[in-house]
């Protein structure tokens, strides 16, 4: 009963306050808290020299990269939504959001939820200028969704499904339901040496280095910058 009476008293006080505000004409006062916008979290990258030392890019290339980065994300950090939007612009046919999601988590090494310019440039440095070993390690990290050091069939299935989603609906030949699954089976046959259902980093590195196609295609984007 005491709780009820307390509530009643509170309600009565509120009612009296409302009447008072009504009389004095201050009913709809703009709350000050609403006016203060959430200040934008602005992040500034480290200096140009430090970044040049940490990555394999020259100053010019860093400048070009930063300008593009800053254009899309003036606040200095990309969140997942913006990342997905940017990536989706390159693949207008299908739905790039899932692959962008996995990419984002591969870029966001510290799992903070936003990719800063340093993270961005570090990952790009590996992808474009790194050794084959580094690239393959990065790709392994991308496929390993839960970051436990192993790729199992479900993770691979998710990744391959995300890649197929980017194709969209209008493809030739027509995409069937089990096409991704077949693709994953082929992949596992090649990669999983000891047939235990998971691919470790060593198995992955070994199998990729045996395949000339993969090695050659990794070098494909050398001259992207």
């Amino acid at each position, binding site marked *: 009963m005491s709780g009820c009476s307390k509530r009643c008293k509170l309600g009565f006080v509120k009612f009296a306050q409302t009447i008072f505000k009504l009389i004095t004409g201050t009913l709809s006062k703009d709350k000050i808290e609403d006016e203060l916008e959430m200040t934008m979290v602005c992040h500034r990258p480290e200096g140009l020299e430090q970044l040049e030392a940490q990555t394999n890019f020259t100053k010019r290339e860093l400048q070009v990269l930063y300008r593009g980065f800053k254009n899309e994300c003036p606040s200095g950090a990309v969140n997942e939504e913006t990342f997905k939007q940017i990536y989706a612009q*390159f693949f207008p046919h299908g739905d790039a959001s899932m692959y962008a999601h996995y990419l984002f988590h591969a870029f966001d090494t510290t799992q903070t939820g936003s990719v800063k310019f340093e993270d961005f440039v570090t990952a790009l440095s590996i992808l*474009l200028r790194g050794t084959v070993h580094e690239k393959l390690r990065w790709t392994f990290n991308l496929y390993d969704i839960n970051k436990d050091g192993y790729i199992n069939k479900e993770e691979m299935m998710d990744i391959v499904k995300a890649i197929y989603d980017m194709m969209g609906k209008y493809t030739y*030949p027509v995409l069937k339901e089990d096409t991704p699954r077949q693709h994953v089976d082929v992949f596992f046959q090649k990669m999983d040496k000891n047939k235990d259902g998971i691919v470790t980093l060593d198995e992955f590195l070994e199998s990729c280095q045996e395949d000339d196609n993969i090695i050659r*295609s990794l070098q494909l984007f050398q001259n992207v910058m």
Partner: protein
Amino acid sequence: MAAGVAAWLPFARAAAIGWMPVANCPMPLAPADKSKRQDELIVLNVSGRRFQTWRTTLERYPDTLLGSTEKEFFFNEDTKEYFFDRDPEVFRCVLNFYRTGKLHYPRYECISAYDDELAFYGILPEIIGDCCYEEYKDRKRENAERLMDDNDSENNQESMPSLSFRQTMWRAFENPHTSTLALVFYYVTGFFIAVSVITNVVETVPCGTVPGSKELPCGERYSVAFFCLDTACVMIFTVEYLLRLFAAPSRYRFIRSVMSIIDVVAIMPYYIGLVMTNNEDVSGAFVTLRVFRVFRIFKFSRHSQGLRILGYTLKSCASELGFLLFSLTMAIIIFATVMFYAEKGSSASKFTSIPASFWYTIVTMTTLGYGDMVPKTIAGKIFGSICSLSGVLVIALPVPVIVSNFSRIYHQNQRADKRRAQKKARLARIRVAKTGSSNAYLHSKRNGLLNEALELMGTPEEEPVGKATSLIESQHHHLLHCLEKTTNHEFIDEQMFEQNCMESSMQNYPSTRSPSLSSQPGLTTTCCSRRSKKTTHLPNSNLPATRLRSMQELSTIHIQGSEQPSLTTSRSSLNLKADDGLRPNCKSSQITTAIISIPTPPALNPEGESRPPPASPGPNTNIPSIASNVVKVSAL
């Protein structure tokens, strides 16, 4: 593709490394960077306008872009200046902020463009000076409302997939335009509301006399008829209320809402009347309950948007109305007291008490002046005239505020309606832009393959057919090509996809046709096996194939041609016929279309022939096949 996003293309291409281990086929070659790769430093400043200022001026605010080391990223070594590819007009305001310490908002500037620029330079909008702050806030609020409106209507559009029956019903109730049934229901209820209100009104009109008794109102004369009408209306209202209650997503919230309370109040008197039929004591109370039936007229507010706006205005002007009421009460009490004491002296005065004077004060202040109570003493008359003059003032003051609120809300509603009307055109524009981008890829794929074929043929002096694509575009297309390779599927446009589906369903008929590859569009083959399947079909007859088929075959053959340089058969066939087919056609600026002969099941032929010829500029040439390798190049 937006120009700004083009800067992210290196990132997207680098991210494509993630596909490499998954892909089974080798990737196409990257486009060669023919032009000397220069930094895209354009020697302009803030898009051409050079601004000059001291360094210390900029360093006054070290937590902004211009005041910190972030601007080094924009430094141009060659011309020794900082280049920003932004709007010079807004930059003027930004630079003035550094100079004077006050940030101004130019009235002609679009609010979102201005916000973007401020965000880029790292300046918080809160420091806009007082002179421009109000304007900025107003524009910002309008923009936010517009965005919310768009989001709401988007959400409404997108919540299509598989709504439960209950949800569809609720949607039908809330937006009667969604289905014809809902519209019918809407109009029927509106009609019955009108009937019920008119009945209530006509019921009390005196309706002629029954001989031998006094004049009766119609309600009592034709009581049965009116009772039937009332019953019918209440039935409809009850059913409607119950249906709404069933369909509401949150029943508790629905019961508490104003409209449902009005509904309940409108139908309760009838049921209460049914319960207490002829009990003499409470029938008096029951009669007063009938007055609540007039609340049915408020049900019209669901049907009329203007009523809703009025109600919303009153709600939003609650503080002004409250102030009006309070000041009026104050004035009434003051003047009533004064009038009472002024008229106390006169005999037979109607001002018997202060509450009795309230009536006089109200009537006078609102300038009604019935004349049933008038002051007789001189003092009373003086105070009475002061009362009427002040009444006009007190009432006239809050009214413009209410009116302006109403006008603002009304215009907002009108703008929302206009936006909704333009929404279709806007969405169509967005869709066109999107398909334009994907079509560009498909077109350039064919052009690009044609170009490669030409190059490989070794005719460098010929100009590449089709318009040249920029480096960015060719890189983007290479990226899409890699995706095709990774998944072993190709992009095609919508019409061809539908043709494929149609054909695959046609193929389900049992027949004696020879299976051609195109008859099994669902077959997922690797690029290697596809090639071998291809060559087995060419030796067949050279029935003119449909253009559609040619597209399919063409694209597959060309892909083999470009990616397997060691394969000689298809290449030689390209060389063979390409010479004849292409040379004369290339010389003319027209693009020719050629047809690849593939075996067509005879039954499908008439259907194929009857398809309308495609709208392509060149003629459909049909060169008879000499050898088995009739491969003609088709370009759109």
